[in-house]
Structure formats: structure tokens, C-alpha cells
């Protein structure tokens, strides 16, 4: 019987595609995982920018397909005469199943693909390099306090915060009052800063210059006015600055953009 054959064929086809999708995921993940094992991205920022381009292409392709399909059908299937009705035939059981399973498989394959790529970057973002310089950050309404561990403490309203170019820096963070969030847009990284908990983020300044950090968790009237200036300087200058507890000013740098 034709219907049963269709059903069996569709079922087989759907099963194959779904199996492919499920199989694809670990393949993609392990391929990406291989890259992670090899060191992942050099910093959260470079990884973010790369993945963002992949994601944009993904969205444009999906969006484009649906947008073009909509425009086409709205033009092609307009009623010719008043009283016209649609001529679509109801789907057979096989077709209904196929139109459910195949798009689901495609969406799931795309989901797992993005998840796998995102997971690689996530590993980079959340794995602090062993040689990272540790800075303790305390947030309050409305400033940030950076403790370099040797008695050097800098408050964001008084002075810029120095970091070395090309070396990873990890912020170990907590808050004195409400929830804040430490965000460095150009380093593509943020994490909330809370009382009673310790959170962290790490970054690596790619070049000398001045970078903005700002608060991104609503904390009251001064929320818009909690910037911190991060100044990236040559490592030697940074070391000297830390050793002198901030008394030896780092060499002047060109501001960034």
C-alpha cells in the first residue's frame, strides 16, 4: 500500500537524519575539544570575536531562509478572487512526522554545533592560566578597590589600575554591599560581584593602552558612574610599579582609541 510505504520510507529517513544529528554532536565536540586541549584561545577576547562571527553567519543564514520564504509565499499565494480558499492538502501521517522530525534534527544539530563551539571558548574563559597575576577586587557603592597583595591597594576613583601587557590577570572578586558586576567591554568579559561570595574573571591585555571597566549590575543611584580605568603597560614597568607600591609611576602610554 502506498501510504504504508511512504510512512516507512519517511520513518527511515527521519531516523537516519536524527541519528546523524546526534552523532554529529560528539564529533563536532571532540574536534573542537581537540583545539581546547591544544590551548584554546589566547584570551577570552580573541575567542569571543571569532565565535561571534560564526554565530552571526549562522543567524543570517537561518533568518534569511525564513525571511525569504515568508516574502515569497506572501506574494505567491495571494487570493486571486474574493471567496478563494487555500488549496493545501492535509499532511499524511508520514509527512507530518517528517516535517516535525527533520527540522527538529536540523535545529538540534545546529544547537549542538553552537554548544560545542561555545564550550571551547567557555573553557578558555573559565580556566585561569597558571601564570596569571592575582588581583583581589572589592566592589562597593560606587567604586572598585584593587588589592595587588603586597600592600598596594588602588581605588578606581583615585587612580587608574595597572595591568601588564600580554600577561594574564585574574580578578578574585567580592562586594561590600550590593551586587555589582565587573565588565571590561574591550576584553569581552564580565562577572557579577556579590557579598558573601567570591567570583572571578581573567583577561589578557593585548596591547598597551587604556581600557574602560564599568559596573553592569544595577546597584542604585551611582550605577552609571562606577568606571575604572585599566591601564596596560609593559611588564617591566608594571613590575616596578607593583614593587614600589604604586609610587613609581609607569611610563606614559598612548591612550587606546
Amino acid at each position, binding site marked *: 500500500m502506498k501510504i504504508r510505504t511512504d510512512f516507512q520510507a519517511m520513518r527511515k529517513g527521519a531516523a537516519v537524519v536524527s541519528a546523524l544529528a546526534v552523532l554529529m554532536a560528539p564529533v563536532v565536540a571532540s574536534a573542537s575539544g581537540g583545539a581546547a586541549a591544544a590551548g584554546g584561545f589566547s584570551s577570552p577576547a580573541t575567542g569571543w570575536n571569532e565565535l561571534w562571527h560564526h554565530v552571526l553567519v549562522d543567524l543570517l543564514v537561518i533568518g534569511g531562509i525564513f525571511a525569504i520564504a515568508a516574502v515569497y*509565499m506572501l506574494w505567491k499565494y495571494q487570493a*486571486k478572487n474574493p471567496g478563494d480558499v487555500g488549496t493545501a492538502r492535509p499532511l499524511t501521517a508520514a509527512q507530518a512526522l517528517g516535517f516535525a522530525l527533520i527540522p527538529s534534527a536540523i535545529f538540534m544539530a545546529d544547537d549542538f554545533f553552537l554548544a560545542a563551539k*561555545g564550550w571551547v571558548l*567557555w573553557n578558555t574563559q573559565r580556566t585561569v592560566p597558571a601564570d596569571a597575576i592575582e588581583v583581589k577586587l572589592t566592589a562597593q557603592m560606587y567604586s572598585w578597590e584593587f588589592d595587588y597583595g603586597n600592600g598596594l591597594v588602588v581605588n578606581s576613583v583615585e587612580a587608574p589600575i595597572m595591568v601588564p601587557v600580554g600577561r594574564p590577570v585574574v580578578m578574585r572578586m567580592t562586594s561590600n554591599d550590593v551586587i555589582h558586576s565587573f565588565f571590561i567591554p574591550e576584553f569581552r568579559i564580565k562577572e557579577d560581584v556579590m557579598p558573601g561570595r567570591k567570583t572571578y574573571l581573567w583577561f589578557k591585555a593585548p596591547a598597551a593602552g587604556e581600557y574602560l571597566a564599568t559596573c553592569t549590575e*544595577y546597584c542604585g543611584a551611582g550605577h552609571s558612574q562606577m568606571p575604572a580605568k585599566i591601564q596596560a603597560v609593559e611588564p617591566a614597568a608594571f613590575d616596578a610599579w607593583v614593587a614600589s607600591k604604586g609610587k613609581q609611576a609607569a611610563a606614559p602610554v598612548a591612550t587606546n582609541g
Partner: protein
Amino acid sequence: MKEWIFTTDHKRIGILYLIGSMAAFVVAGIAALVIRFEQFNPGMQVVNSATDYNNALYFHGAAMILAFLIPGLTGFFANYFLPIMIGARDVAFPRLNALSVWLFYGGIVLALVSMVMPDAPDVMWTGYPPYSTMGTPGNSAFYVFTVHLFGFSSILGAVNFIVTVMYLRAPNIGWNQLNMFVWTMFGAFIINLVFIPVLAAAVTMVLFDKYLGTHFFDPAGGGDVLLYQNLFWFYSHPAVYVIFLPAMGVLYEIIATMAKNHIFNYKAAVYGGVCGIIFLTGEVWVHHLYVAGMPDWLRIGQMVTTLLISVPVGLMVISMWGTLYKGAITFNVAMYYAVSCLFLVLIGGLTGIPLAMTSMTLHLSETSFVHAHFHFVMALFATFSIYAGIYYWFPKMTGRSADSKLAYIAFWLNSLGVNLTFWPLFVIGVEGMPRRYYDYEQFPAYFADYHHIATFGGVVTAIGTALTIINLVYAAFKGAKTNSNPWGSKSLEWTDTVSPPGPGNFVHDPKIAPGWTPYDYVR
């Protein structure tokens, strides 16, 4: 007047919800204009203090979600049309229905009072402690009780409508013969019933911490600030599907009628789509907490569940697209809005994909990118669906058409305005423009150019909104009279009632033939 205050008729209660939610929409829209004018340039220009700005931000968010979108969709549309679509004379518990709408108005009164009182709440609609439990900032109690009133109203409505759909369907209307509108509303009500109590608990704990000396969210007293966020978002993520599902339901009805077609792959849309969303919706809330210090493995796990929600949503989208296929499409104002929603849902939905990814959101969280994303889904897609539904069912509710030239002009102004406002915010969001800022002096100068465009868009939208309301009010009294089914729909509210439907809805109880569906265009 007494007839309206004490009414238990679902249609009148629906109109009461419409009036209340549109009033909230207008006031919250004015708050949005304050925000947009203040953000026009860095520095302070429109408000007198940062706290005034934060008050406006709080009111705008809370009112739009809790007083406009959710009551507009589940209060007005479900009340007026769901009973008629299933062949019922009213809901299962009409007096409980009246209590629901009174609670809704109570919430509106409280929200409006909180705009004008001294020490107004400035905790944002999210109300995070410790800020909301501190001694100094505004009166968090008003926030808590506003949520209680709206939440209680919604829970009672959910009970009412779930029982109505389960037990009051006319004979021969089975589950597979329900309008998509009924299924999506049913899904929204299930979500409300299950999840709103968690929000009520969360805000009640804020109330206790602030005014009764408990320490749920106070680390110094053994509490944890993250607890609140988890409880809050456990409800508030499903809440977006309480908005998304009914909006889709309204659009399905309009598209099926205007294309004179049955729903494409109805079962996939219902069982894969609506039921799939209900199943997954409670397992993704951590994506609102990607930067909040949750354990890494939990963030990754919920990245997978969040991405997977694209499957049921995708099935509903394909079903909607497919309903156009081989249709016989005609256009009215409702269809214009519905068609624009097709594109808005693409943009809103697809920009959710990077936000589903933990690694992308470590940068994008709390920036204008997120803000633009949820405005595309809520302020644009859901609001335009509400407009579409009002225009579509206007002839049923009033016996007149609101499809005037002014309606089309307002449509184009609305469409232009909202796009002008939110596209620039995507761009500067990626560059780091934070949310909830009135001042952005520390950012590059070109941010202001994008804010200029966004504010101009706000003005255009305001004009479009004003014209829409003027047109609808005028048409209610002076619009061109129509017959009782001007769009030629096969759905029960069009075929078996007069316009407007009288008490009891049907002159004769509808006789449903076996195999009937509300989309019986092609036999």
C-alpha cells in the same frame, strides 16, 4: 457602571482587562519616553536625579510585563474569545473571574501610586537583594505587593481557564480540534499556575528580609543573594512564554483566517511546539544567571537546554509559515501587523541564540544587546500581536471595522519607530553599552549618535501609538459597520455569534459535526 464593576460576564471582564492593560501601556510608554530622552546624550538632561531615572526604569519594566503584556494577552484575549471558541457560554468560575480582574486593577492602582509617592521603588522589575532589602532605597514593599496582586490575579485566572478548557468544551470538540489560540492560551495558563507561586515566594522573602529582620538573602546572617535570583528567574523565564505563546496563538488565528487555510502540521505545533515549550521552560532559567557566579557545569548544562528550546519554537514557527503555503491570502490591518510579526519573531528569536551561549553572554549580559533582544520579542513582536488581535476581532467586539487609512498610517509609523529605536541598541550593546544607565560619558563619543537615532525612533513610535489609540476609540463609535463575519473565518466566534455576542454568547448552542475544525476552509 455598576454592571461593569460587578460583572461576571467573561466578555465584559475581557474588556476591563483591555482597558486596564492599555492604560498601563500608555503610562509605561511615557516612562519609556523619559528614559529615551534622558539617554539622548551622556550626562543628565531630563530627570532631576539618578533616582528619578531609576524610578522610571522600574515602573516601565514592571508595568509593561505585569500590567500590560501578561494581562493583555491572558486577561483580555483569553477572556473574551476562549470560551466562545470552545462553544461555552462562559468560563467555569465566573465569580472567580471577576475577582481576578479586581485584583488586576488593585495591582494597577498600587503600581500607579508607586510612581508618585515619595521614596518610590527603584529596585527594577527584578528586585534583586541586597539592594531591595537595604534600609535606604525606595519602598520595596510596594514592589512586593504589586507582584502579589498581579500574581494572585493570574493564578486564579489560570485555575479558571484550565478547568474551562478541560471541562466546558462543546460536544465533539476534542483536543485535536481546538483553535491554536486555545492551545497556546492553555499552555500559558499551565505555566502561570506552576511557576507564579515561586515568584510570590521570592518577593515575599524580600519583604521579610527588609521589614521583618529575616536573613534569607543576607550573607552576614547566613543567607545567600543568589537564592533570590534563582527563585525569581525560575518564574520569570517561563513568564516570557506566557507572553510568547498567546501572541503566537493570536497570530495563528489571523494567518489561518486571512490565508483561508488550515494550520500546517497542527499536531507538531501543538504537541511538539506548545507542549515542548511547557516541558522545557522550567529547565532553562540559569541563562539569566550566566554571569552571576553559578557553578560552571550548571551554566553549561542549561546552555544546552536553552539552545534546545529552539526546537519547539522552531516547530511552531514552521507551522505558522506553512499555514501561508498554498493559501488564498488577503490583507487587512491585522494581517499587516501579523506579517510584520513574522519578521520580528525571527529577529527576536535569533538574537536569543548568542544569549543562550554562556561564552557569548559573558560579554553580552546586561548590555543593550540583551535589552534590544527582549524588546524585539516583547515590545515589538508581542505588542504588535496585541494590535493585530485588536484589529482582527474589532468587528466581532463592536460590529464596526477599525481598518481605516489612519490605521495603516499608524502601522507604518509604529513599524518604523520601533526598528529605529532597537537596531542601534544592538550595535552599541555589542560594543559594551550597559543597561540601566542614564549616563554613558565613559564610553566612546559615537555611542551618543546611536542613542540619538533610538530616541528619534521613540518619538515616531509614540506618535504611531497615539494615532492607533485614537483610531481604535473613534472606530468603536463611528467605524464602518460590518457583518458578523467580515473576514470569512471558520472559527466559532465568527460563525456562531452576532457582533458583539450577547449574554451566553450563542443564540443556539453550537452543533459541532464530528471532524469539524475551526480551520475548515478546504473540505
